């Protein structure tokens, strides 16, 4: 295999802190090259240097053996490097065609658009990739998976030799991911190289030809396909072995706290949803995206309006405003953490303190010392990196931002109910284990934990009771005993295999 890209001795510091320490990274022609590492290991930073978002402090980049200098995104494009970022870079108010051609329009005399020609080319491209979209669709009307295909087409149009994908499946479901893999293999067969960043080990095993593993800004290994196995990879990534403890189902004690949801209906989606969650247990809610899982959590937290039904904690009806509900000791980690969970320009401590200010008063003023202590506790409990409490959240890596949001609710001492929506999307294996452990610890302290997750394995691993929702209704409630992933997937597509189990 010929070498396409060589990055040698790449270094990068942000305000004095080295986040890349002499990274060597090579990608072959027509190779799918995996890139893994813990949250904050420096994956996105490496890619951003390659694509001209940041300048590197030192190091050499070669394409086909020739040294190149990349100072902007257009330099990268000119060298055949294109990237699909963690956060998409499409313009929602423009059409698919306009987006594909954005920055590289076909024009008469550099001014007027050749709309017909562009339309035709876009159609050809869509056909060639067998995507299910039309050139005139407005991007804002497309779902995330389709938006991604638009991004891919944008790269293809540039005749990119190297396409970089930073956690492309983070917001895709199984079917959509499968489809993406097909596209990627198709690209490979046409000689395009792919750099594939992901926290999902199974994808890496299935797809990549080689895998580079980063830890703390340095390469700890490059594995060829044959040597990629879960234990080795995890050990290299986090420097220790994870023990997968057997799952045991915890039953609720008879005097346990209970959250009772009865006949919850909302204008748009929820249809007589009823269930009970008990202290000491983790209730997992599975089902399709759009089946009303997040709405249930949001209704409990007082964010969404419900038209009928009641929500009671130990027999007492909960107020219907988020402010009062959170005073009650109920916390919500929302799905869209970047927009709903964080104030990006505030630092870690301030973000963590936000829902906890009622505990930070000392006389009339907030105690800075206590605020800081709380922040440090939060950082330690989920090993957020870098552990500097004064860093602004916008400068944290994607995964670490998520940890901050989760951590801020975990700091509440009087937490009675924790509602978590997709707790581990974009979070590395090590931190996942920590989050599971924390949720279990909370449950053991008598707290009610309700988790919505699309990751079926996660559901089986952590939940004691599993609730499957379909089209705004509770389809099935099961005790998590001897359940397999198939049981869940079947239930989510409306097929019952096990008898419903209400014994509790």
């Amino acid at each position: 295999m010929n070498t396409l890209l060589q990055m040698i001795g790449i270094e990068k510091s942000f305000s004095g802190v080295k986040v890349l320490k002499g990274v060597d990274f090579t990608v072959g022609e027509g190779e799918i090259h995996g890139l893994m590492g813990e949250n904050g290991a420096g994956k996105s930073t490496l890619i951003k240097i390659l694509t001209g978002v940041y300048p590197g402090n030192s190091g050499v980049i070669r394409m086909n053996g020739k040294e190149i200098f990349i100072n902007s995104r257009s330099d990268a494009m000119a060298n055949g490097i294109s990237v699909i970022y963690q956060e998409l870079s499409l313009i929602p108010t423009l059409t698919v065609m306009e987006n594909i051609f954005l920055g590289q329009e076909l024009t008469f005399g550099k001014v007027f658009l050749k709309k017909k020609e562009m339309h035709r080319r876009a159609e050809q491209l869509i056909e060639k990739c067998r995507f299910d979209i039309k050139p005139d669709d407005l991007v804002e009307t497309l779902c995330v998976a389709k938006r991604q295909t638009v991004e891919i087409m944008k790269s293809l149009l540039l005749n990119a030799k190297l396409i970089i994908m930073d956690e492309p499946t983070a917001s895709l479901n199984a079917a959509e991911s499968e489809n993406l893999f097909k596209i990627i293999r198709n690209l490979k067969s046409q000689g395009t190289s792919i750099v594939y960043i992901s926290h999902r080990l199974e994808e890496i095993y299935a797809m990549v030809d080689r895998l580079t593993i980063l830890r703390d800004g340095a390469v700890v290994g490059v594995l060829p396909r044959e040597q990629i196995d879960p234990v080795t990879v995890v050990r290299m990534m986090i420097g220790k072995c994870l023990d997968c403890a057997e799952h045991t189902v915890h039953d609720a004690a008879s005097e346990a706290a209970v959250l009772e949801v009865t006949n919850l209906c909302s204008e748009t989606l929820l249809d007589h949803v009823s269930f009970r969650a008990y202290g000491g247990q983790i209730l997992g809610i599975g089902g399709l995206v759009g089946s009303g899982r997040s709405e249930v959590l949001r209704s409990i937290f007082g964010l969404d309006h419900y038209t009928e039904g009641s929500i009671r904690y130990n027999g007492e009806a909960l107020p219907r405003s988020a402010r009062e509900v959170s005073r009650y000791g109920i916390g919500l980690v929302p799905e869209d953490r970047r927009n709903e969970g964080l104030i990006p320009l505030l630092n870690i401590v301030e973000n963590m303190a936000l829902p906890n200010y009622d505990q930070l008063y000392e006389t009339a003023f907030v105690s800075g010392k206590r605020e800081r202590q709380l922040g440090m506790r939060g950082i330690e409990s989920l090993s957020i990196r870098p552990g500097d409490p004064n860093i602004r959240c916008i400068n944290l890596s994607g995964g670490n931002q998520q940890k901050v949001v989760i951590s801020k609710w975990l700091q509440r001492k009087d937490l009675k109910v924790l509602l978590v929506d997709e707790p581990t999307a974009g979070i590395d294996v090590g931190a996942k284990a920590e989050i599971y452990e924390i949720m279990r610890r909370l449950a053991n302290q008598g707290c009610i934990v309700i988790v919505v997750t699309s990751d079926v394995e996660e559901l089986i691993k952590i939940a004691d009771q599993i609730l499957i929702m379909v089209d705004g209704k509770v389809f099935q409630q099961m005790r998590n005993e001897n359940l397999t992933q198939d049981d869940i997937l079947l239930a989510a597509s409306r097929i019952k295999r096990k008898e419903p189990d209400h014994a509790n």
Partner: protein
Amino acid sequence: MKSKIDQSVIRKLVSLSMVVIMVAVFSATAQSFLTSRNIFSVLREVSVIGLLSIGVTFVIIGGGIDISTGAIMAVSAMICSRLVNMTLMPIWLIVCIAVGAGILCGLINGLLVTKLKMSELITTFATMFIYRGIVYMLAFRDEDGRLITKAITDKGFLTIAGKWGNFYPMTLVWIAAVVIGYLLLKKTKLGTYIYAIGTDRKAALFSGIKVDRIKIATFIISGICAATAGVLLVAWQASVALSSGSGMEFQAIAAAVVGGIALAGGRGDTIGTAIGSIFMVMLINGIYKYGLPTEIQTITYGVVIVIMSVFDSIYFRALNKRNQVTKRAVGRKGEAS
């Protein structure tokens, strides 16, 4: 799934029907309203506010705001009045100089916003005063240094405003601006880029668009439109008041908002703005006909802006909600670890 065309057409029908309702109300109550004379005089007024509004439309679609347009208009008008009265320059040259001043003002706005990274609102708020100051500097004074207004008597220049029967040809300038503006937005690269930077600046940057240049271009377009409006205004009224155009920048923005230009950027086009401008001018004109006091007029602007903004936010939220029914199939199998 709604196509792009449907959405914007529906939005235009809404503002158009507001115009129609208003026409109905006014013509039912005021007899002189539906005469060709009145209609043409409304259109003449529309062309001045309408031009300002077309200009600010570009800035707003590009994600910014420009409140210096009224002052730029006054600068251009004052330059015309000075040059016509004091020199023998040919008219075309005078017009070019006035429009050139508009370009310069727009360029200054654009440079301040992009190079000094000032906010659009603050920048144009500041330059609004600066440009207004220039108007005072250029104004005529008597021997004692007191400010005076001086009417233009040059027939040649005044024909710019002209009159063909009951029709005022300066309306055509506005119509041309609407059409050219529409083509610019929809058929050129620049237009696509203006929507792009107004919707998502960062994504536009990542697509290799020179965001700063496009932003500057929107301010220059706004400057050109405002200056052209100034030329028409002075040719029409034959003299410039020192305060001329002040307050008009907000009417222009209001017209754009009524026409469906989302203040958040990235949406709308000049046809919408044109409808909005007609609405605003009729509102002013109609209120005047009823003899209602000015305070009612100003309050009405405010109320209309609020209503239309609320309408847009509800409308777009509803659209998004419907689009969000993107039921993603089965959950994913977790990774084996």
